[in-house]
C-alpha cells in the first residue's frame, strides 16, 4: 500500500522532466540577454565586440564616460517625471472612465465604448503628424504635457478597468449610497481601494510604456535638456564608432527602474491582469 504513492510520485516527476528541460532552456534564453547586458557594462568596447561574456574591470570607466558623454541624471529625472506624471493621470482618468462605463446604466454607453475601441484600431503613426502640429501650436513641445497628453487616456486602459470592474460588487455601491456617500465618494473610498490590484497592473503597464516610449518623445522633445533615457541610449548607439561598454552601462541604468517597478508590484500585477478584486 505504501509503495503505490511513491511510484506515482516518481512517475509524475519523470513526466515533468521534459517540461523542466524546456523551461530551463527557455529561462536561459530569457535571462542570458540580461546577464550579458550586466557583464558588457563592465567590459570595454573591444572586449564586448570580441564576445567576452564574463565580468570585466571597466565598469567605473564606462560610468565615467557615460556621465561625460550624456546628461544621464537629467535624462533619468526627465524619464521619471514624464513616466510618473503619465502613470498618475492615466490611472486616474482611465479608472474613472472604466468605473463609469461598467457600474452606471446608460443606453448609449456601449455604443460610446465601441467608438472608443475603434480608436485602438488606428495606428499611432497615422496620428503622429496631426498630433505633432497640435502639440506644437499649443506651445507644448519640450514640456511634460507634450509628452503625456496624447497618452493620458488610452482605450486599452479604459477597457482593462471596465472589464475588471465587473468583479466589483454592486452591493457595496448600494450600501455606500444608503450610508449617504456621494458617487464621487464611492469612487474614491470604495472603488479605488477594492480595485488596487487592477491599479497596480495598470501602473506597471503605463509606467513601462511611458518609460520605454521612444518615437513620440523623439518627435516632441526637440531639446537635449528634455530628452528621456531611451533617447539617451539612442544617442549613445549612434556614430561611426560605438563604445559598447558605455552603451551597455546606459542600457543598464535605463532598465533598472522598470525592473524595480515590476518586481515591487509583481504580485499585484499578476492579480490585476487576471481581474481579481479584494
Amino acid at each position: 500500500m505504501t509503495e503505490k504513492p511513491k511510484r506515482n510520485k516518481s512517475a509524475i516527476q519523470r513526466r515533468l522532466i521534459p517540461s523542466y528541460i524546456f523551461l530551463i532552456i527557455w529561462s536561459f534564453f530569457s535571462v542570458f540577454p540580461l546577464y550579458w547586458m550586466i557583464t558588457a557594462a563592465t567590459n570595454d568596447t573591444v572586449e564586448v565586440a570580441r564576445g567576452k561574456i564574463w565580468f570585466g574591470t571597466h565598469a567605473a570607466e564606462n560610468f565615467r564616460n557615460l556621465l561625460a558623454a550624456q546628461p544621464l541624471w537629467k535624462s533619468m529625472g526627465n524619464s521619471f517625471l514624464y513616466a510618473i506624471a503619465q502613470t498618475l493621470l492615466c490611472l486616474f482618468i482611465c479608472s474613472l472612465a472604466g468605473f463609469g462605463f461598467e457600474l452606471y446604466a446608460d443606453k448609449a454607453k456601449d455604443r460610446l465604448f465601441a467608438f472608443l475601441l475603434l480608436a485602438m484600431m488606428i495606428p499611432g503613426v497615422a496620428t503622429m503628424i496631426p498630433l505633432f502640429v497640435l502639440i506644437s501650436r499649443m506651445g507644448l513641445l519640450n514640456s511634460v504635457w507634450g509628452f503625456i497628453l496624447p497618452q493620458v487616456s488610452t482605450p486599452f486602459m479604459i477597457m482593462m478597468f471596465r472589464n475588471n470592474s465587473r468583479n466589483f460588487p454592486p452591493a457595496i455601491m448600494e450600501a455606500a449610497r444608503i450610508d449617504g456617500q456621494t458617487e464621487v465618494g464611492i469612487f474614491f473610498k470604495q472603488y479605488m481601494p477594492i480595485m488596487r490590484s487592477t491599479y497596480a497592473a495598470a501602473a506597471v503597464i503605463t509606467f513601462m510604456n511611458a518609460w520605454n516610449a521612444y518615437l513620440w518623445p523623439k518627435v516632441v522633445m526637440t531639446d537635449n535638456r528634455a530628452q528621456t533615457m531611451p533617447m539617451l541610449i539612442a544617442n549613445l548607439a549612434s556614430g561611426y564608432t560605438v563604445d559598447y561598454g558605455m552603451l551597455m552601462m546606459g542600457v543598464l541604468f535605463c532598465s533598472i527602474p522598470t525592473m524595480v517597478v515590476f518586481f515591487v508590484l509583481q504580485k499585484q500585477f499578476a492579480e490585476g491582469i487576471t481581474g481579481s478584486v479584494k
Partner: protein
Amino acid sequence: MKRKLIALLTAGVLAVSMIPAAVYADEAEAPTADVASEDENTLSVYAWDANFNIPALEAAEADYQKNVNPDFKLNIITQSGSSDVENAVTLAASAGDYSTLPDIVLFQDHYFQQFHLNYPDAWQDLSAADIDWSDFGAEKLSYSTIDDVHYGAPVDNGTAIMAYRTDLLEEAGYSIDDMTGCTWDKFIEVGKAVYEKTGKYLLCMDGSGNDLPYMMLQAEGESQFTDGAPTFASNEKYNQIIADIVTMITENVLYLGNDWSDYVDQAIVGDMVAGVLNGNWIIPSMELVEENTGKWAITSLPTLEGGEGYAANGGSSLYITANCTKPELAVDFLANTFLGGSTETYDAALKNGGVITCSAKAGASDVYQEGVDFFEGQAIYADIVKMGANVPVVEQSDYHYQCRQYVGTAIQNLVAAGDTSPEGVTAALEDAQGQLEFEMEG
C-alpha cells in the same frame, strides 16, 4: 466633499505642472518649446555623433567666441543619428511648420539633393557669404551645390583611405609600395598570399550595404548614374569591379560581413583583416585595436588599369534652415569657422573628434603635419587632405542608397552561385538596375 475633491484635483494638476520648474531650478536650464533660438547671439544646431561631429561643432563655437563674438553660443542638440535630422525635416515639412527646426542642421551629403528637391523652401543658401570656395575639394562641394548656388558648409572630409597592415604584407613578401597604384588583379594576387601566410583577409565589406563598388568606380572617375538614370549594368568597368569583388570574396581576399556590426566589430575590431578601404571616418574603429599600433599605413586605392585611385564616402555638411531668423549670424559663424578654413576650428576638431578637414588651408596647419603613431608615424591627416583634392567629381544620385542595396543583393547572389562570368555579372546587374528603375519610377 465635492469642494474638497475639486481642491485636491486642482492641487494635483498644479503640482504636476510645477514639477518642470522644480526640476529645472535654473531657468536657463529649462527646455523651451521653440527650437530656433530667440537670443540674438545664440544659434541652435541639430547634430549627431558625440565622438565625431559634436566635438567639431564645439571647436567652432569656441573659435567664434574667442575671435569674433564673445557672447556667441551654439546650442548643440544631439540627435541619435543622421536619420533623426532627416526625419525632423520631413516631419516639419509634412506639418507645414518649419518653426520646429533649429537654425542649422548637420546633414548627410548623399541625402541633401533629394531633400532640397522635395523641400526646396526648407533651406537658406550661402550666397551672402564671402567665401573662397576653391579652398575646398570640388567633389565635396558637388553634394551641396545646386544650380551653382552653395547651400552647405563642409564639416568633415569623406576621402577614402586604403589602409594596409604593413607587417602582414611583409610576411607575405610585399610592401606598401607594391600596393600603391597597383591594379585590382595585383591586389587579388597579394590578398591570396596574405590569407595563405597569415589567415587574414586583405579587405572587408558590409554585406548589408557597403559603398565598396561605388568607391571603386569613383576611383575610375565614373558614376553608377548618367543624367539621373542608373547605367551601371552597361558600364564595363563596373561589371569588372563586381566580378573582382565576387572573386575576392570566393578567394578569401575579402571578408563579407553580414551587417555593419559584423563589418566593424568582427572584421576590424576583431582583428580579422590586413586591409581596410572606406571613408577616413573608419580610422577610430581601426585604432580601437591598440595592439596593432605602428603596424598600419595608408595609401590611395588600386584601380583596374593601375595608377593611384581616389574616392570619397560619407561625410556631412551644415545647412541653414528656413526657420533661422538670424541668417547673418549663421552665415558669419560658418564663414569664420568651417567655411573660412579656420585652423583653430579644424585643429581642435581633429584633436577632439578625429574630424579631418577638406579645406586645403586648414589642412596646411602644423597639427596636420604631425605623424600618427598608430600609422607608423605617417602624417596621415595631411595625406588625406592631399588625397581629397584628387577625388574625381562624379554624378551623384538621390537614389544612392537604394542603388547600393540592390547592387549588394546582386553581389550576394553571385557569391552564392559562385558566378564571376561576364554574362552572369551583367545579368545580375541588369536585374539590380531593373529593380532600381522600377523604384525610381514609382
